């Protein structure tokens, strides 16, 4: 197995543009959830003036994750997108015009930009990514599944570098349905994107200063209607792949309400809100940044971790996600020694 490293991150969230804004908001425990992101501030989006909101989020996050790589030169990169709902607003707009209003004409962009792979396709166009470009669809666990697919592409030599991006946009419909299913959490629906750049760690020797962490293990399972059991298998699978035990894990990060393993478990749900698969990606990004902080306890987690006395050092972080219907995944990120 090739050891993989996270060498770039990017995000856009209600906290603002950039992974830094995400980290700052969560470190301070600031509640930033809810509300539309009105401005991405990304010049490259001028090329995509008619794109859906979700695409602008995806491109913004990918741009940040690739920023250290300069312009162009991404021909041998793979891009894997994780998506839950896709371009809800364009899709609803097109459906409404054609079906509900029975009109024969509508903007073609409402159709073409609403396909589920439009964020990935547009990102590949903007950054000239010509390797495998896939979109994998699902709930919160799909962020890890997308990462796993990217890892497989690198391990089998199909790509040398991979961008993994998750993006979501909210609209009236998703907000309404979310409030129906989660009445206590009404108003906490969020949106945005997160992206990771992953590469073989062993090609980066001596450890590149931009290496945030290595990816030690991952797994995904589906056991219909038994999310806890599926999650346990995913966690066990990720630990086994990493050659670690639960005792090696410094902290777990998840928005799943039931704590699954006996380690301090953090959730940024209250701070960032729920953005479907993007929430899991934000958890991965924050964990990667924490691992890359180079200090025993990164300030990023300090606010939350001060509740726990015994963990003075974090070497490994597990991020897990599951869904009520039994889809679950887990990934372990590990700290690397800096030169």
């Amino acid at each position, binding site marked *: 197995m090739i050891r993989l490293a996270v060498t770039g991150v990017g995000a856009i969230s209600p906290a603002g543009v950039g992974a830094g804004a995400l980290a700052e908001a969560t470190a301070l425990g600031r509640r930033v959830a809810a509300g539309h992101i009105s401005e991405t501030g990304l010049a490259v989006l001028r090329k995509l003036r008619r794109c859906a909101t979700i695409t602008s989020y995806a491109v913004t996050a990918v741009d940040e994750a690739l920023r250290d790589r300069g312009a162009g030169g991404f021909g041998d990169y793979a891009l894997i997108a994780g998506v839950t709902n896709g371009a809800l607003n364009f899709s609803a707009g097109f459906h409404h015009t054609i079906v509900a209003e029975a009109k024969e004409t509508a903007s073609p962009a409402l159709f073409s930009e609403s396909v589920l792979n439009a964020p990935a396709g547009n990102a590949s166009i903007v950054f000239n990514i010509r390797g495998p470009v896939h979109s994998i669809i*699902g709930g919160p666990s799909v962020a890890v599944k997308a990462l796993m697919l990217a890892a497989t592409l690198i391990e089998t030599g199909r790509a040398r570098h991979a961008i993994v991006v998750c993006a979501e946009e909210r609209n009236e419909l998703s907000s309404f349905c979310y409030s129906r299913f989660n009445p206590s959490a009404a108003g906490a629906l969020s949106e945005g994107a997160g992206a990771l750049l992953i590469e073989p760690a062993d090609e980066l020797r001596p450890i590149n200063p931009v290496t945030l962490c290595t990816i030690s293990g991952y797994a995904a399972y589906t056991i219909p209607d038994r999310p806890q059991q599926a999650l346990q298998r995913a966690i066990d699978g990720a630990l086994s792949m990493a050659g670690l035990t639960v005792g090696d894990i410094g902290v777990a990060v998840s928005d799943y309400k039931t704590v699954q393993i006996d380690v301090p478990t953090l959730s940024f749900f209250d701070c960032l809100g729920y953005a479907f698969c993007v929430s899991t990606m934000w958890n991965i990004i924050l964990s990667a940044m924490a691992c890359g902080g180079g200090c025993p306890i990164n300030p990023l987690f300090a606010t939350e971790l001060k509740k726990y006395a015994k963990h003075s050092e974090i070497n490994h972080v597990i991020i897990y996600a599951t869904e009520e219907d039994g889809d679950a995944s887990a990934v372990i990120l590990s700290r690397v020694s800096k030169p």
Partner: protein
Amino acid sequence: MTDVWVTAMGLVAPLRPFDTIDAFWDALTSGEDSIKLQPPPLLNTKKGWLTASIEIGNALRPEDKFFYIAGAALKMAIEDSRLSAEELQGADMVIGSILGNVLSRERQLIDGNIQNRTVEASLSYPVRCLGQRFAIGGRLRAISTACASGTDAVGIAARTIKTGEAEVVIAGGVDVLSDFALAGFNLLQALTEDKVRPFDKKRSGLALGEGAAFLVLEAERHALARGAKCYGRVLGYASRADASHLTAPHREGRGLASAITAALSQSGLRQYDINYINAHGTATVYNDLMETKAIKLALGEAAYTTYVSSTKSMLGHAFGASGVIESLCALMAIKTGVIPPTINYRYPDPQCDLNYVPNTAKATPVGAAMSLSAGFGGQNAAVIFGRPTKI
């Protein structure tokens, strides 16, 4: 890395009703055309559309069609595979789809009922439902790479086995006709009002179709251990992006040529070893020209001796299902030594100058066959199948 066998197939597609893949193949290789002028699936409008649709009778509502055809095709594949319940529990499943159960969403919109719509709107919802119904207990994944979704599902499934992540992976593709898609492709001026004529000089666009197809992919040692039959082997697969335009293919076929070259390299075959290509062949002006250029770019002189046909001329374009349906056709061409025709072909296009198997099937031994797909987002995928291993 282990060899990947295709050990079972299941299919529900247009053409006259069939119970077996062999019956479907007989109809297809006899050049049967399933494309007819038909009303839209749900909307009550005067306008008819040339489509290839599947009849489900009056007992079912149109919005039940997605699960009906997906369930029937998956059941056929599972029965064909003779996998035990325990083996299914350990199997993964990858399904490619573009729109999922879109008719359900349209019905709810027409009825003004938005309850549960977000749950059903997610493309992963039908994948999980099918997994639950057939007790498939491994990793379930929904892939959406536009019209390449089905081919990517097959390729990703094969790769999952090659890397040792799973012994059995069921790869499928499902999509149904919808008012949404008809209106969308109509706005893009991609639909024909004539016959579907892939690679013909007078080609004028595509006809939409629908269908569900599943292949059971298995590690060779696993298949051998349980005495499974083998329809063929997955020899190579690659996916490449055009990085050019969201809806139009790269004019020179850059991405598709790159995918063919990469899949060929992975398979260990030479350009002349590919006997048959089941083309994406939508019958749009740009796709067919791009695809011809891509095949010539990747295969060189061998392109002129390779049979290339478009089964979309008979089955229409079944979106995300088409890649799996056409993979199945490639496997059947290997099995039977018969290449399905490109029907409605009358006027050769000087720029599309390959052997497109016009109008009549061709009987010839097929040792290796390739299936190609391309789609929105600049997606391109190529998968290569070979004969079963001689044991």
